């Protein structure tokens, strides 16, 4: 790859991998091509996103009235459970790794495919089967345990389809594990000649760190879910106090997975942001090595903080103290990243394309969300704020203001590469701004609601909280529109979009040296790498 010329703007009339390898549905469903599998994932994930979004819509509509008249309490409980289960396991966790991770990692390292293409396809089928179980659970009457499945409610008291959902998530968990395995082995073994570790794009580093977390955390979830299922089926009793068990043991197991899970959701987003910001700034990232290693610091420390979800659960006062200091520690590498991104803007030549708008939005909203995390890490403050809307606002700032914005930014950025089409830039900018506004209007009031004492998972609430709830619901409506817009114009661009050149952003990175869309085996010849990433010279 030559650093001084951009091998872009090579016109292509060929539709690359979209056509090579077969044009039938069957050829897609039996593909080994990582790019096609990424597309399969993207379609499925989009579907689940809107399913989870529909649940959110119902929730925000109900919360307009303090008496929750729109829905029975039971139905509301099932709705927020569905929203959480779908958004966490069927959207957020696979969102970037299974779409952009699958599509881009081989391209970025100069490989022809991932290490285990058949396992890759198998992971998609596992995801779909898991999804089927979960939708079935919904159609057969839903689940009302919350996505956190706390015992003994989920094991001994809930009269809903817990086992069905638990099986669905269990199966999908293996999709995550296989994806992680594939990405790790691919990154280790299949880099092109000259692609040393410190020449890798930060997205690849991010996917690697994410994959380590995916592989080590998800099995814990799998076993914990199995134990719930067994307790419901056979009355095992490990979590049931009536049988000598301990409900708080469940919380420890659950959060041991679920805290690293949130890093599975944010690390890839950070990788995307690093890629997009370099292109938007037309320059190298500031502090490349710190950026790379901070990903691993976050991943590692992230395994040690799970007890901060349990400060008031009944664990010992001293355990809470330890988890508190570790939770502050995990914020340090995140802070490092934010400062490095800001420094990257310095003396750059900044272009405000839609991906850059999403990127800047991410940095701001992730900072806000992260700051509120500090409130929650402080045990004394957490006592008042935990299990209120403050926490709901905190994690939505990170996961929606952070991860979803990064996901959309990445989708826009690599859209020309993956589809061979350009999307309409003007509309995209409007949607990005609308999303930023709608998002803040939806979730900022929730910080105040939480501070004022409104608990989460409440179907009805004290009337004094109504004004802020209405504001939040209005914001949600705007947010919904801003999500529907890309669905429309990106879909439209597939049929009517202008043909994309190989490198429409004049970006660095091996993926931009091949055609848009890439041929089935990615590169005509194996690239040889002679310099680091982000060698922008204009």
């Amino acid at each position, binding site marked *: 790859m030559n650093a001084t010329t951009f091998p872009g703007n090579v016109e292509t009339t060929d539709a690359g991998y979209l056509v090579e390898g077969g044009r039938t549905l069957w050829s897609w469903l039996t593909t080994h091509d990582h790019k096609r599998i990424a597309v399969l994932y993207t379609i499925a994930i989009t579907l689940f996103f809107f399913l989870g979004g529909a649940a959110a819509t119902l929730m925000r509509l109900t919360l307009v009235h303090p008496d929750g008249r729109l829905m029975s309490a039971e139905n509301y409980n099932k709705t927020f459970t569905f929203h959480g289960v779908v958004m966490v396991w069927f959207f957020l966790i696979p969102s970037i790794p299974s779409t952009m991770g699958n599509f881009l990692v081989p391209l970025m390292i100069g490989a022809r495919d991932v290490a285990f293409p058949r396992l890759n396809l198998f992971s998609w089928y596992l995801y779909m089967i898991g999804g089927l179980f979960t939708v079935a659970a919904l159609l057969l009457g839903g689940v009302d345990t919350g996505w956190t499945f706390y015992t003994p409610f989920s094991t001994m008291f809930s009269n809903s389809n817990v086992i069905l959902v638990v099986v669905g998530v269990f199966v999908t968990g293996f999709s995550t594990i296989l994806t992680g395995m594939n990405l790790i082995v691919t990154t280790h073994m299949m880099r092109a000649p000259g692609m040393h570790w410190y020449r890798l794009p930060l997205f690849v580093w991010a996917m690697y760190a994410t994959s380590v977390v995916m592989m080590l955390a998800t099995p*814990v979830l799998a076993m914990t879910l199995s134990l719930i299922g067994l307790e419901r089926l056979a009355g095992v009793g490990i979590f049931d106090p009536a049988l000598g068990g301990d409900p708080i043991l469940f919380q420890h197991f659950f959060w041991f997975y679920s805290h690293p899970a949130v890093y599975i959701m944010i690390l890839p987003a950070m990788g995307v942001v690093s890629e997009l910001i370099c292109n938007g700034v037309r320059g190298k990232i500031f502090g490349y090595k710190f950026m790379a290693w901070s990903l691993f610091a976050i991943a590692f420390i992230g395994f040690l903080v799970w007890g901060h979800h349990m400060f008031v659960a009944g664990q010992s006062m001293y355990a809470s103290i330890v988890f508190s200091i570790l939770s502050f520690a995990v914020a340090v590498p995140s802070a490092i990243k934010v400062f490095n991104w800001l420094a990257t803007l310095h003396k750059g030549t900044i272009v405000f394309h839609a991906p850059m708008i999403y990127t800047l939005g991410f940095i701001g909203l992730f900072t806000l969300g992260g700051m509120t995390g500090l409130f929650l890490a402080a045990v004394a403050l957490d006592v008042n704020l935990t299990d209120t809307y403050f926490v709901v606002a905190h994690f939505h700032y990170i996961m929606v203001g952070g991860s979803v914005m990064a996901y959309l930014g990445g989708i826009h950025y690599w859209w020309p590469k993956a589809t061979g089409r350009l999307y309409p830039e003007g509309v995209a900018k409007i949607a990005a701004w609308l999303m930023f506004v709608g998002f803040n209007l939806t979730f900022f009031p929730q910080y105040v609601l939480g501070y004022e004492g409104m608990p989460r998972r409440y179907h009805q609430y004290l009337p004094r909280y109504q004004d802020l709830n209405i504001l939040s619901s209005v914001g949600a409506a705007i947010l919904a529109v801003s999500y529907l817009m890309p669905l429309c114009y990106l879909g439209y661009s597939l049929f009517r979009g202008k043909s994309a050149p190989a490198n429409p952003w004049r970006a660095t990175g091996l993926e931009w040296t091949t055609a848009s869309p890439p041929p089935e085996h990615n590169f005509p010849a194996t690239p040889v790498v002679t310099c680091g990433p982000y060698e922008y010279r204009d």
Partner: protein
Amino acid sequence: MNATLPEAAVQQQFDDASQQKEAAMLGMWAFIATEVLFFGVLFAAYVVCRWRFPLAFVEGSAHTDFAMGTTETAILLTSGCLAAIALRQIQLDRARQSAVLLMITSALGMAFLILHGMEYHDEFEEGLIPGIRYTQTGPDARGVELFFSLYYVITGFHSLHVLIGVVVLLVMAIRSWRGAFSSAYYTPIEITGLYWSLVDIVWIFVYPAIYLVGSAG
């Protein structure tokens, strides 16, 4: 012996056979790491429950069949040894010897499962299966019930892994007999061996935790 020995069919995504082999090995090690975490949860639950009900765990363990458990241990450890020798054989191009050893390893795994099935059957007769047939009374009954719940979950998942191994070993044995492997290419046997070692090692932790509680001193 002068016919060309099988080489790895290098899949299109790999540059060469050695890259393919290294990828397979790393993949299997990564998978083993996930299994450690998977079983780790059960062992953590076991530790917590045993700390709460130490006497009940001794009593529960006394109800398990020590002779069967020890025999099963011997079978699995032997099979692990044979799997290692099978790998050595194929490295020396002795495909048929390797096939036979793999077949015996698989058969030993099957024997393990049969013995374990017999254990489960006996435990059913004695009323030691919580949730299905549990007839224990006495002051420690609850703790014993917890012990057995853990016993079934741990050995159940372990047996599932043994079963998968039995099938895979059989497939490897057949392929080896038919000449699919050589000193130039035996990766599938090697990663199968790694998997089987995992199955062995998990059992090495299961055996004392279930069958030997309170037996020391």
